[in-house]
């Protein structure tokens, strides 16, 4: 799974063991990088608390935090569903289902997220609204007034930009998560399926009660890492004028020319969120390993 995600904290073991003895060895093992980040975070927190400009920037930017969190959570929830369905499709023997899933994954993974966001917001959604409208017109023509009128009166305004942002993020991440789910399912030994089948379970039942619970447990850390990545990528939706923390930071910088304050504060906010989330994922991974 070497795709877009850097895993900030998931590297537990350095590849090369230092050759030193005693103190020298310990010096290497101290997580200096973490101390460094802590120092930066403390300095940033101190500055935000003590400098009037930074305080002002912070009070502006924090307004966008609900949109950032809401967008990330909603998009992730949809992406999980999309990813699970597509992941099952990728290993399905049904030719249509399998190829549809493969096509979706390949299409989405071949287009940069920024372009996808533009595409869905400016091309995809208006096109879909047009399709609904003509569908409604057709329904009216065959005498289904009520449903038809509902569809013809649907306008672009009915799908506000922050909904489009959620659609774009979930479509993108649905493809990433599909690969995680597929790998998770394929990591469960073939014997499990055979055992379940010989107990008289149906194919679907075996998948649901035997394979998936184990597979999902295996991929939980990867899913967590992708949520961290999604929180970061949610900053891209600011191009749709969605008022997430990136957008309000841009507005603040544009109005005041305090670019430094705006972007230092913004970076610290993202860093806080991603570090907390990464640590949570790490803890969770440890607990899983203990229970094995």
């Amino acid at each position, binding site marked *: 799974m070497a795709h877009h995600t850097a895993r900030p904290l998931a590297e537990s073991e350095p590849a090369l063991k230092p050759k030193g003895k005693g103190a020298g060895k310990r010096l290497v093992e101290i997580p200096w990088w973490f101390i460094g980040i802590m120092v930066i975070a403390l300095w940033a927190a101190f500055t935000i608390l003590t400098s009037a400009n930074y305080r002002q920037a912070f009070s502006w930017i924090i307004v966008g935090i609900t949109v950032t969190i809401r967008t990330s959570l909603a998009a992730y929830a949809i992406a999980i569903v999309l990813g699970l369905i597509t992941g099952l499709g990728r290993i399905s023997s049904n030719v249509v289902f399998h190829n549809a899933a493969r096509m979706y994954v390949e299409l989405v993974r071949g287009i940069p997220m920024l372009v996808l966001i533009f595409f869905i917001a*400016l091309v995809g959604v208006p096109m879909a609204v047009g399709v609904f409208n003509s569908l409604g017109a057709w329904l009216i023509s065959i005498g289904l007034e009520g449903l038809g009128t509902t569809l013809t009166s649907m306008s672009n*305004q009915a799908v506000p*930009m922050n909904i489009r942002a959620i659609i774009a993020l979930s479509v993108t991440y649905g493809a990433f998560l599909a690969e995680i789910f597929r790998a998770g399912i394929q990591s469960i030994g073939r014997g499990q399926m055979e055992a379940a089948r010989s107990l008289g379970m149906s194919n679907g039942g075996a998948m649901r009660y035997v394979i998936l619970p184990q597979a999902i447990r295996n991929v939980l850390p990867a899913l967590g890492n992708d949520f961290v990545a999604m929180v970061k990528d949610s900053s891209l939706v600011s191009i749709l*004028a969605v008022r997430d923390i990136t957008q309000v930071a*841009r*507005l603040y*910088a*544009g*109005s005041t020319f305090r670019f430094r304050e705006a972007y230092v504060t913004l970076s610290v906010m993202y860093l806080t969120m991603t570090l907390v989330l990464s640590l949570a994922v790490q803890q969770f991974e440890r607990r899983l390993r203990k229970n094995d």
Partner: protein
Amino acid sequence: MKKFALLSLLVAAGLVLAACAGTPTAAPAEPTAAPAEPTAAPVEPTAPAAPSAGLPDLGGREVTVAVENAYLPFNYIDPDSGEPAGWDYEVWGEICRVLNCVPVYTEVAWEGMIQAVADGQFDIAGDGITITPERAEIVDFSDGYIIIDQRLLVRLDETRIESMDDIVADTNLKLGTQTGTTNYETATTFLPADRIQAFEQFPFAVQALISGDVDAVIIDEVAGQGYLGENADKLKLVGPSLSSDKLGFIFPLGSDLVEPTNAAIKALYDSGFMEQTNLKYFGPDFKITYDDLG
């Protein structure tokens, strides 16, 4: 596997061919590359500088001019030729002709453009920048070169909106504009922030208006007319002026180009060049003389 590779190669080739078939002209030139001198006569550094007027001579030096290439009619990429064009290009071509300098145009994103000039990254920015006291703290402005009004751009079939009051009154209506502009600042004096959608480029805001995502766009009238020209069958300007402002070129603080540029702007008004260019880009209703700028 080999078959698969061959197949994908064929598909890729097909895509490339299809893409080429759709574009009769060659690919547009890189706008940020070498100095594009769209319409100005080629500058000959050896030629004597400005006639008569006794303007300063910049000795053929290069000056970097930041433009967005996405702000009609000041600067844009001409869809027919693929070349950058617009008011900024014509006027800076002429200013450099009379001052004996070479304009090097650079495509810069609007967000951060003023800051970049303040930091000395570029000598000048065009882009129809409104003169404001806040901006004047970090950059030097030239004298104003035109006065503009901020107006509302709406869809052609719009009946709900006659003026800003209608937008204020109807909380369902959304207003679009561009981040970091005086239009955005003006919008915030009328509406709560969550009813304003600030895009990073005006074309994006205008597209959002056409597709019905926002109901009006607050924009400088001359720019609004530029977008109107492109979409005359879809848009109209409504309502009285919301604010009247002067536009000026910006320079890093203390730039030695401010005085020569001011002299050139005056000379261009005196020679009638400015009037012609304004008429060409801002439409037949646009009449302004240097005295109007005061």
